[in-house]
């Protein structure tokens, strides 16, 4: 009897401690949690993008792609230009990425070390494309709050391998989505900036920006814009659409 009571007490202990843990959430953590929730609120989403890149002094180049997103997983299919048409990328997690190369008819696992390389010659890197939620990877600190936004300084958590040790992030209060990012290296040098604009919403509170603009300050201000040309939410995409098997079908 005594033993059962002791066991019940031990089981109850985490419940008693839980509210204390919840109270410990800092304003920065709350803002980032709201951001992550907003990013994963949809059951799934489907986008079509024109990805326009401008290198200083050169003509614009354009890539077209379709992107399916479900929670933290992404499935990208390139549709233009012809040399990358049919190429597909699956981001199964931050450390598991696969690519289907139509010329080789083969799915190849992409090792993490390649992710700092450019993404198809754009200002984005593969790492930039792979992250959806930040709370697990970064510790947030609220550095500024205005009527319309929270500004956070994110510091990479120990053991995490995302390439930017610090990110400054402004989160809109109205839809909890990002307004802008600044990405820094370990010497505090600003490597990239990203702005997101022209937000639209569907199904009530599922929102995304129509334009993402990423500027690479290490490459003379080269920029890439992801211009959304198509968007659907809650399409009913099954989990099987986000597996290596899906790369080889269709």
């Amino acid at each position, binding site marked *: 009897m005594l033993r059962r009571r002791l066991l019940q007490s031990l089981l109850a202990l985490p419940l008693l401690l839980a509210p204390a843990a919840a109270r410990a959430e800092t304003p920065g953590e709350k803002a980032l949690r709201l951001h992550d929730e907003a990013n994963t609120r949809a059951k799934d989403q489907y986008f079509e993008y024109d990805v326009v*890149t401008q290198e200083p002094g050169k003509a614009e180049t354009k890539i077209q792609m379709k992107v399916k997103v479900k929670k933290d997983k992404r499935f990208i299919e390139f549709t233009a230009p012809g*040399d990358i048409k049919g190429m597909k990328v699956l981001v199964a997690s931050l450390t598991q990425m696969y690519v289907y190369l139509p010329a080789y008819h083969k799915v190849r696992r992409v090792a993490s070390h*390649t992710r700092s390389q450019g993404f198809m010659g754009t200002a984005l890197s593969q790492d930039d494309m792979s992250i959806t939620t930040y709370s697990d990877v970064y510790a947030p600190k609220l550095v500024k709050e205005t009527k319309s936004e929270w500004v956070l300084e994110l510091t990479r958590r120990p053991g995490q391998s995302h390439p930017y040790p610090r990110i400054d992030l402004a989160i809109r209060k109205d839809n909890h989505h990002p307004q802008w990012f600044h990405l820094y290296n370990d010497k505090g040098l600003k490597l990239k900036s990203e702005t997101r604009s022209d937000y639209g919403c569907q199904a009530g509170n599922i929102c995304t920006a129509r334009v993402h603009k990423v500027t690479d300050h290490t490459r003379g201000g080269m920029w890439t814009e992801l211009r959304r040309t198509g968007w659907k939410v809650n399409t009913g995409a099954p989990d099987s659409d986000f597996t290596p098997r899906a790369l080889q079908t269709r």
Partner: protein
Amino acid sequence: MRKAHLHLLLAAALLAPASARAVEFNFGGKIQSDVRFRVQEKSVGGYWNELKLPVGVERNQNLLRAKLNAIAGPFTGVAEIDFVWHGYLAAPEGIASLSRYDQMSPYYLKVHGLYLEGKDLLPGLDLRIGQQLVLWGKGDQFNPTNTINANDIEDPLLFGEQQANLMARVDYTFRESFSLSGVLVPLFKPAILPRSGSLALAALDRLPFTSDPLRWRIHAEQGFVGGGMGYPTVVANAIPVLPEQSLKNMQFAFRLAGTVKEQDLALSYYNGRVDTPVPYLNYTRMRKERICNPADSGQCVNGMLETDTYLTYPRVQVLGFNAAGEIPLGKLPPLGYRFELGVFFPQEATIGLLNERLDFGLVQEAGEYDYTPGTPGRPRPTTVRSTPFAKWTLGLDYTIGKHVYLNVQWVHGMVDEFGAGDFFSEGWAVRQGGVTTSTVQTLSCVGLKDGRKCAREMLHPRLGDYLVLGVDLKFREERILLRVFTIWDLSGYTEERYDEAVGTRVRTHHSLFSSEGFSAVIFPELVYNFKNGFELGGGALLELGKDYTRFGDPATGGSLIWTRARYSF
């Protein structure tokens, strides 16, 4: 219950609104033109049967690839076909050739895929039927477990390419990251060999027998008959004999694949046939015709022993293991790895040597060779032992900064190497053979039916070890790609001959770092991508080493330089 479920699915498909059943088409492809030049002449054979690859244009290949996907609900139809037109042709065979487009403008179709696919026919179950590729190997280009499709090594620049074949494939995915696959291949397809592969037919000294004494004896006999009697042996015809199309000759394979602790793992089993041919019957006849060396009329042969060689494709079972993932490197980004292992269980292959009555002063009556003196005709010698053997590829890759990608691989067993013969189980491939003795001494070896004291061979393990080193350098936002890949034959070559001084046969090993043992491929290329579908590229394929080596072999086609223009749409 299951039947009811199926009926419901069918009913749902039939009742689906027209919009849901609408067909979506995707079309794409490429137009590509290749021009290649051979920069080094390669030849084999004596003046009586010389085969030569001259310096000059090696090929002008113009290709249109069309790819069409038609998607209707869970069903997809895929067609991916190359139309290839050669701008460079061989000499017309006669005046009639000048009226034939197929001879004056040679062309062909190549199917990469022509299949129908049903996705999630039952939860997690996909079915694909038609001409298709099933590539399970995780290695880069060197895939000992890609045994389901036959290799296509016609084009040395497309190393690792395979041919589509008729198959039925079922994939069942469970627990999100695991899949069980089954493949049935009703018809056997052999490998497509390099155009220069015919030169290998002139290399009759590369005796395929596993028995050392038999090889030494035949080297002595070929040396005596060819040198002393003036009747060299040549291959008149090489005739591949495909397995009959029957239920028992169907090939099949299974695979279980999944991700465990972020490592991609797969186990596979294949039951079928090796796709590169091995000889199983030689039939030799005599052709009496005096042929003199055009460059030296005093040098003549009295005729030739012409051999028809029949080729077969032995059965084999392959257990495969694939793994790919990352190796942590502390604070640095992890190292990528790929490991692919195939354990082969081959059917033993033997060869019969038959001849017509041969009369070159000495008479050899018609019949079968007495492989073991005293017991003519039996047992037939082995060309592939049934001893199991392993081929593998261990690859590591790493990226340095934004511009440099490195790839290193240890390849044990090249695509066409087959049969036990490495550090687990001794077995040699003869790369060059002959005699070191005078005609009289050779006659003595022939008379004694023992070539031990006469024969000389240059040997290479049946399964060689190769180091692949590659680097990609990307510049100008990935517009410029400079790629250099190299393959180094680590096994070296072993020369074996009889040493009078010690009274036995001795072996001398020539390593990669000696002129006798050096063999390598250096494959640099430079590609400019205009970022709108256009690409221009050029490079070289340098095949280095002496003629008996793996890569210096004339049958590889010799060194090339090439240019390529491509537009993808």
